[in-house]
């Protein structure tokens, strides 16, 4: 198997990277009809597998679960999830041969083994569905030519996919058809029907390609989403301890701060997030984030280049072959950081205080979102995709940090994202060492406005506001957020 993207001529590379349409709701008027009466078999029953299956069944579709024999015999969690909810469960041999649609919801790392086991059992003309394109694009998995290959990727954790469906809504979803495997031309119709079955059509659907999904997804998760949030959190905590801020307070500020700050981002983009600061703090955060962008730009570009060339997946797969040596070592290292080991203190921090006392994180988030977005767009990814993989997902990841710090974030995200996150973090911390020496508690730990009279120069403020509001991520974001009709506020305690 060789990297699929690298086998393409440049023309076709650009072509596939550039697929990205926000679909009109009229495209979904046929509902689930295309899949009605068909046999849907889901492989894997973790959080995504179970919750997507519950939604599909509640939409009137025939759903069952194929699990490995050991999982069934050992009555593992996946078996329990499926049987307790009244689904038919069987082995690959029992269920795959009669399946019209086989849905692969196993972790990335298992894809090659799963697809190799499943493919020979699949009937002529069936469809194989992925929720991530890594196996096809990076590993170059070749699928039998009579089989249709599609992708439907809800852009939210599995529990959210279920929660939004039962309240009559859905989560934003990305769909794609693999151009090498659409022999009957039915791929898009099936992907749309599946999307209706999970409720995604109500929340906004982006038509993408396997290539665009993989290259943008990897970039987003390694840099702004996980990598930078990890680096920023650890550096902020360490700085506060160094400067004598109470450890419990520092731990709480970092754990919950990023969620509160990015809630504003979710509702109104970088503009809304920056507007939560006072004028003086906003100008400072702007200057700091410009500096951060200059320092980190080469690192963001290196990540994007390695993703495009296939270098990233090559070294990660080497680590897979090596029994996850690096991944496990980095995971252990993250577990040992002072931030991770200091429990959040029993102190009350008001919503506004998270902005005023954690201005540094606002600067980190602006720098990271804009850099990731710019770098992706420069590499040929459409602004809509770049928006989803940077700004849109940041609050979702921030929510996992609020739950149980970096441990929880790295547990919830895929192994691929976790590996990329550590890779970024390892390189980014030394890169920011000099910058962090200049940072004091006015930026992190104490109220930035303290002791300042709040006066700003009109022109300076106008320039900063224009630079923030005029950025392309803000313009595309305003359009997409409007199209996604309703945004649900993450309910926090």
């Amino acid at each position, binding site marked *: 198997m060789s990297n699929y993207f690298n086998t393409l001529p440049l023309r076709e590379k650009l072509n596939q990277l550039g697929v990205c349409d926000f679909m009109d709701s009229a495209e979904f008027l046929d509902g689930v009809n295309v899949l009605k009466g068909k046999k849907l078999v889901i492989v894997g029953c973790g959080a995504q597998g179970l919750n997507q299956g519950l939604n599909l069944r*509640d939409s009137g579709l025939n759903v069952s679960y194929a699990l490995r024999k050991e999982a069934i015999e050992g009555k593992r969690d996946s078996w329990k*999830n499926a049987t307790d909810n*009244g689904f038919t469960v069987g082995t690959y041999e029992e269920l795959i041969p009669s399946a019209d649609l086989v849905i692969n919801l196993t972790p990335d790392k298992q894809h090659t083994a799963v697809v190799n086991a499943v493919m020979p059992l699949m009937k002529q003309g069936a469809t194989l569905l992925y929720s991530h394109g890594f196996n096809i694009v990076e590993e170059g998995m070749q699928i039998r030519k009579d089989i249709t290959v599609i992708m439907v990727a809800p852009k939210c954790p599995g529990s959210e996919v*279920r929660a939004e469906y039962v309240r009559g809504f859905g989560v934003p979803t990305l769909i794609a058809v693999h151009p090498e495997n659409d022999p009957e031309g039915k791929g898009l119709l099936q992907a749309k029907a599946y999307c209706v079955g999970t409720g995604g059509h109500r929340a906004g659907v982006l038509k993408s390609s396997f290539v665009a999904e993989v290259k943008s997804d990897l970039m987003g998760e390694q840099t702004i989403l996980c990598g930078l949030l990890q680096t920023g959190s650890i550096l902020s905590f360490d700085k506060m301890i160094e400067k004598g801020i109470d450890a419990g307070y520092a731990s709480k500020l970092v754990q919950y701060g990023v969620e509160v700050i990015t809630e504003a981002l979710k509702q109104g983009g970088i503009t809304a997030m920056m507007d939560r600061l006072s004028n003086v703090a906003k100008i400072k955060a702007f200057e700091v984030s410009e500096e951060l962008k200059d320092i980190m730009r080469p690192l963001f570009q290196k990540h994007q280049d390695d993703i495009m060339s296939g270098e990233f997946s090559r070294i990660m797969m080497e680590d897979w072959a090596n029994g996850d040596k690096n991944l496990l070592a980095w995971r252990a290292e993250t577990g040992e950081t002072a931030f991770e080991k200091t429990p959040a203190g029993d102190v009350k921090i008001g919503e506004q205080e998270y902005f005023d006392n954690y201005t540094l994180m606002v600067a980190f988030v602006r720098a990271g979102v804009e850099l990731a977005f710019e770098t992706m767009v420069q590499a040929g990814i459409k602004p809509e995709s770049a928006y989803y993989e940077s700004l849109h997902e940041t609050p979702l990841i921030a929510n996992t940090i609020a739950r149980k710090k970096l441990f929880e974030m790295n547990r919830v995200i895929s192994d691929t994202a976790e590996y990329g996150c550590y890779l970024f973090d390892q390189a980014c911390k030394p890169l920011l060492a000099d910058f962090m020496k200049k940072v004091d508690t006015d930026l992190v730990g104490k109220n930035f406005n303290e002791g300042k009279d709040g006066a700003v120069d009109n022109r300076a403020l106008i320039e900063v506001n224009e630079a923030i509001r005029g950025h392309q991520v803000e313009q595309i974001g305003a359009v997409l957020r409007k199209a996604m009709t309703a945004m649900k506020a993450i309910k926090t*305690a």
Partner: protein
Amino acid sequence: MSEPVVHITNLNLWYRQKAVLQDLNWTINPSENWLVYGASGSGKTTLAKAIAGLVRANGSITLNFKPEAAQPPVVHYVANWYQFKDLEGQSNFYYQQRYNKQAVEVTATVRAELESYGKKHGLNFGIAERIMSDLGFAALIDSTLIQLSSGEHKKLQLVKALWLNPQLLILDQPYNGLDTRSRENLNTLLDELAEQGMQLILIANDLEIPACIDRLAEIREGKLVEISASDRMTDFFTEETVPPVPAFLREHPAAAASELVVKMIGINVSYGEKQVLRNVDWEVRSGEKWLLQGHNGSGKSTLLSLICGDHPQAYSNNFYLFGNKRGSGESIWEIKARIGLISPELHWYFDPSATVWQSIASGFYDSSGLFCEPGSTKHAQADELVSYFGLEEYKNVLMTELPLGKQRLALLARTIIKNPELLILDEPCQGLDLHQTRYFNMLVDELCKNGTTLIYVGHFDALVPSCIEKRILLENGAVKSIETMTEAVETADNFENFEILTKP
């Protein structure tokens, strides 16, 4: 004469540019126990919270505790709304989650919750066990919080409060969701604690109250007015009339496709070892009006969740809805389109970011919150219901900013807005005052004249619509009896204290 326990002078409190409490004065002397009632939105909860120090008001509130008393010198307020958190400290749950099963449990057990509460307040666990058994809650000690029904959550709240045994206890609508037996036992427990020196402020619109209550007051126009027991009874039995229901609700609901709306054959539902429904057979014919009863935890809400398309185990059971076998290719949205549902759980998990108008209009789509523009006809119908329920001034206000009773009215409007063929009203009047309750039940009678099928859950037998003709009674997940209302009254002694209250 010793000092008053609570002394309130000139208390003023504004909410949304409206005066809620105006120069309110109140003195509670030692050993007095008060009942406070009033219309929804009159300021009962606000006053209670002000005494407990949970909201700030202008004026003076002085509390005097007895230093030598056995009870801790605190005021404890039990809210009319309950909220629990998962093991990560969040309360981000969704309606229906308690029916889905995943291998990982995310909420604590009742035992763990109580142990940590007892430790925090230095309480003896043996006492909690006694209170739990009195309230019929003991069997649930190893359940997780998310598995509890609304009545069971209410009991957990009460167990904590009675266990703490504070010098001053304020209970805000404690009877909501409690079955008859639990209500009686609660009153007995309150009487005992009052005897030992605890003082009680009870906020309730109910008639059956503990014997220890010796003073009654109503909140009217922001002031506290003391009422005699006989005046309260007269007030309670004032005649009600309902104005004619909006024309669009007087039409016959969409023709029933089948004579049998619900047909259940040997329904079984269990969670691991715990069986919640046992071999339930039940047929509901088109146009019938049913009362569904049973003690807390008897399986009522699970049974209803099967009908409403909310329970995953519907697919492993044998039953028919509107003439179609469940799980034969229908979507839950097709089922929900024919049902108007309200339940404590639906209220509890409802989208807090929706306005009153949006919440009412969302009934057209069975969604929690409104996700599309309903068009001019539906728009006008929603407006009509807003005024019919007297909610004009709250139309664009967020649901969470309303008093509980008003929220409930908005959700009742949501329930009936599409004039559904099947109405499922699971304790619809929780949180309403007596007038509102009777008003709503008369409205249900009006609506049901046109062939609507009704399933009504209510513990208070006196307060159900008069159109009800049949009753199904559940006990421990099994059907105990199915009978007509006339038979039910005749054989009343086989179930709790079944009685129809007559006018004095």
